[in-house]
């Protein structure tokens, strides 16, 4: 009846996950109770859960990422403490628990923090920057988000019911095969990634179509803001790479569930094929994450330097070059496979070549700043911090792209330091910069600058104190994923890294405080103009937060930096015609499809993990029924009458007119 599920699945003998699980459960129940008692449930359901508005979905993505950041961060703290004290002792974590922690940390940080964060920002901003009303497929967008949430939910369930994979974040066979990992850990891993992977693919298709087909009048490709370009590149990579992940995990699951022999040691299975396939996805994946961050930095640097982006066209070219080359480097993840010097040389050179377009970008940002009027607001701090940090991370990357050096450094703490260097210093700094930068657009008030700067400085210094020691430990020969060790020389560096972790954590706490303080002071921080940073692209042309339809009219774009030009020409070309003629606007109706889909996906995923076959069938039928019901809808749009559009738009224009007259005074 319940497959493999019984009471032994709950780890009563392990206090840490149980207590953590209990705390989280109490937290969730408390929030739910508060929502129900305060009567917010209908509001949540109508305005958020069933919403197909790209801005709301973007916010929910970022919320999911933030919550999961706390989970993945807790794992990181536990690991750093373990390695600091596990010198000639077992530390405080049993090995099998430690192995689950590092696997979960990697999986969560990539799939459920970095991915939803950048996809959330793209969702929120890209249609606004393109000057359109929505993404190409609004309901599908909601489905994509909720499937991602399903994956995150399954990973978190594994904390209390059963176990998570002990295989590392990419579940290499044969360790992840049934004979070496008979538990449900790998199944949790694979099914949560399968489900959230479908969500990501959907988001990718949606955003590619949005950028290519839904641009406002006059927005040629070479007038798109840089963030739209990097979004396009990143989502093209999603569309091309995520199916590889789907196929690879499907093969692993077939091996585990039906006794197939893709990656087994027996019957001719080929383990190295898994490495090739998973990295053919996995290497583009890091560019999927970092390209949007590059886009964010481009926007931030040009806004806060008060200058158009230097070398816009070379930036576009560099972005697309990275997009293509990222598919030609995957083998550098296993130079030690024994492919021979020729193959290794080709992939080594390809890996180094990626540094060229990336270097182009760095110089473009520097030249954008050169001669500009730089304002060191919080987003700009993150951008400058990124430039310094990412150069170090990039250079160590070029170092390990040299096959002989890689033979020495692969699987060492040096590697761990390198990829944290680029992922934290690149993606996470970018995500934080974007968060600070676009927060007023999403919510209508700015974030507190003082706490923002504190958060930046703690995170920035904490990052260095944590990861520079890891570089050193790697040079000293320490390998990754060690539960405990006996080498005295490593210990001081591990302690330093743990101290760095404490500083880093302080940075995260500052960010939470910043949010709380800002929400309390929101009246003082209110952004009435819709353009708090004196921005350059179209998202600043509408109010903060934007109305559901984004723009009363599709803006007519006549150059790069669309909104900047509008402002510059505001005198001759005033922002609005005397009495513009408003039209009815059709917007997509809300739909519970995404939520219901995710509900059935959760049931199906859970049932598959525990081999509860009747429940699998139930979930499958439910998912199909949801689509049929959705397809049967007769009215998928509603009309916002012209009068209502006019009323909303006039308020916006009024605020903006005062802004323009103020700008004229300066």
């Amino acid at each position, binding site marked *: 009846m319940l497959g493999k599920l019984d009471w032994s699945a709950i780890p009563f003998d392990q206090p840490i996950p149980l207590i953590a699980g209990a705390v989280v459960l109490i937290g969730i129940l408390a929030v739910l109770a508060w929502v129900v008692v305060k009567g917010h449930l209908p509001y949540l359901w109508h305005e958020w859960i069933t919403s197909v508005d790209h801005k709301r979905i973007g916010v929910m993505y970022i919320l999911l990422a933030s919550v999961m950041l706390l989970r993945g961060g807790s794992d990181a703290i536990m690991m750093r403490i373990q390695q600091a004290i596990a010198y000639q002792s077992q530390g405080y974590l049993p090995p099998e628990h430690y192995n689950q922690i590092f696997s979960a940390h990697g999986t969560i940080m990539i799939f459920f923090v970095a991915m939803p964060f950048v996809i959330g920002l793209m969702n929120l901003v890209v249609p606004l920057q393109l000057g*359109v009303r929505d993404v*190409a*497929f609004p309901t599908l967008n909601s489905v994509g988000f909720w499937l991602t949430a399903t994956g995150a939910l399954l990973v978190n369930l594994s904390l209390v019911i059963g176990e998570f994979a002990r295989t590392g974040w990419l579940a290499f066979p044969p360790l992840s095969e049934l004979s070496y990992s008979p538990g449900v850990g790998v199944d949790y891993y694979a099914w949560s990634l399968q489900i959230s992977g479908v969500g990501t*693919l959907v988001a*990718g*298709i*949606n955003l*590619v*179509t949005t950028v*290519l*087909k*839904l*641009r*406002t*009048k*006059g*927005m*040629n490709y*070479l*007038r798109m803001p840089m963030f739209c370009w990097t979004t396009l590149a990143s989502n093209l990579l999603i*569309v*091309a*790479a*995520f*199916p*590889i992940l*789907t*196929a*690879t995990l*499907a*093969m692993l699951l*077939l091996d585990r569930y*039906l*006794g*197939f*022999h*893709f990656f*087994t040691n027996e*019957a*001719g*299975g*080929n383990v190295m*094929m898994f490495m090739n*396939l998973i990295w053919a996805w996995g290497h583009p994946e890091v560019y999927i994450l970092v390209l949007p961050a590059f886009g964010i930095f481009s926007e931030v640097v040009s806004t806060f330097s008060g200058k158009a982006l230097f070398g816009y*066209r070379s930036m576009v070219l560099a972005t697309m070059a990275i997009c293509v080359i990222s598919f030609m480097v995957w083998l550098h993840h296993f130079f030690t496979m024994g492919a021979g010097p020729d193959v290794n040389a080709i992939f080594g050179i390809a890996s180094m070549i990626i540094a060229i377009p990336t270097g182009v970008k760095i110089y473009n940002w520097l030249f954008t700043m050169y001669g500009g009027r730089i304002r060191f607001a919080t987003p700009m701090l993150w951008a400058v911090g990124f430039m310094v940090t990412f150069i170090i991370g990039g250079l160590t990357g070029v170092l390990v792209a040299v096959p002989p050096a890689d033979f020495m450094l692969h699987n060492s703490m040096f590697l761990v330091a390198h990829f944290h260097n680029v992922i934290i210093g690149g993606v996470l700094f970018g995500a934080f910069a974007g968060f600070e930068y676009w927060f007023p657009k999403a919510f209508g008030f700015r974030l507190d600058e003082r706490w923002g700067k504190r958060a930046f400085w703690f995170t920035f210094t904490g990052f260095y104190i944590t990861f520079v020691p890891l570089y050193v430990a790697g040079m000293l020969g320490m390998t990754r994923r060690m539960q405990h060790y006996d080498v005295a020389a490593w210990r001081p560096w591990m302690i330093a890294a743990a101290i760095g972790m404490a500083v880093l954590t302080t940075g995260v706490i500052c960010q939470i405080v910043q949010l709380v303080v800002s929400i309390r002071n929101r009246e003082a921080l209110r952004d009435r103009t819709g353009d708090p940073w004196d921005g350059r692209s179209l998202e600043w042309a509408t109010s903060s937060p934007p109305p559901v339809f984004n723009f009363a009219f*599709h803006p*007519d*774009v*006549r*150059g790069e930096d669309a909104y900047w*030009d509008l402002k*510059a*020409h505001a005198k001759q*070309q005033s922002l609005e015609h005397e009495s513009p003629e408003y039209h009815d606007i059709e917007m997509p109706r809300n739909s519970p499809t995404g939520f219901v889909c995710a509900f059935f996906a959760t049931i199906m995923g859970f049932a598959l993990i525990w081999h509860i076959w009747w429940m699998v069938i139930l979930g499958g039928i439910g998912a*199909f029924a949801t689509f*049929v019901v959705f*397809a*049967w809808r*007769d009215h*998928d749009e509603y009309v916002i009458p012209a009068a209502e559009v006019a009323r909303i738009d006039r308020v916006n224009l009024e605020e903006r007119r005062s802004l323009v007259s103020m700008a004229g005074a300066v």
Partner: protein
Amino acid sequence: MAVTATYGDAHADPHHVGRAAEHPGPASKRIVTAYGFWIFLLSDIVMFSCFFAAYAVLADQIAGGPKGSEIFDQRNVAIETVCLLLSSFTCGMASIAADVRSRFWFYLGMAVTCLLGLIFLVIEFKEFADLVSRGYGPSRSAFLTSFFSLVGCHGLHVSAGVLWLLTMMAQVFAKGFRADVLRRMMCFALFWHALDIIWVGVFSVVYLLGSGV
């Protein structure tokens, strides 16, 4: 347009893109839907290419079991291929019928497509069942693993296509040739033709190359 002319200072158009490259604005829903679906199809083909690659890597790993030439029945494969290629034609006829709003020819075209798809699936299922009963199931060797997965994955897509096809017929029956139904029909047709293209790959790589060995 006059607006562009009055706006013609050098600053606004630094790269002299000019009016020739003027972008007209968001595309129509029909274009957007078809475009998005094309991109999905491309991603699906990437997924298939992984199974093709796995087959190429594992095709010789027979682990003492049968080789491809020992288990493939050319006659069945020929019938399967004819069914599928023909169904693509009838699917095209159904699309045209939908375009000219002819219910009768639409139902007929779809019904024949469905029938041909089902014949294909039955033959494939029999082939699989036969192999399993002879002890040549997917767990026998890595070759059989990759064979069953690649061909089975295509078969699963055809099954999903049949389910979708029936839903389309029901939609036309209940709602008529409404704009959104027609858009879905267009996507379905793209899907069905794409399955054909993939089958040509399966047919060539698995059955033709495999039989020669």
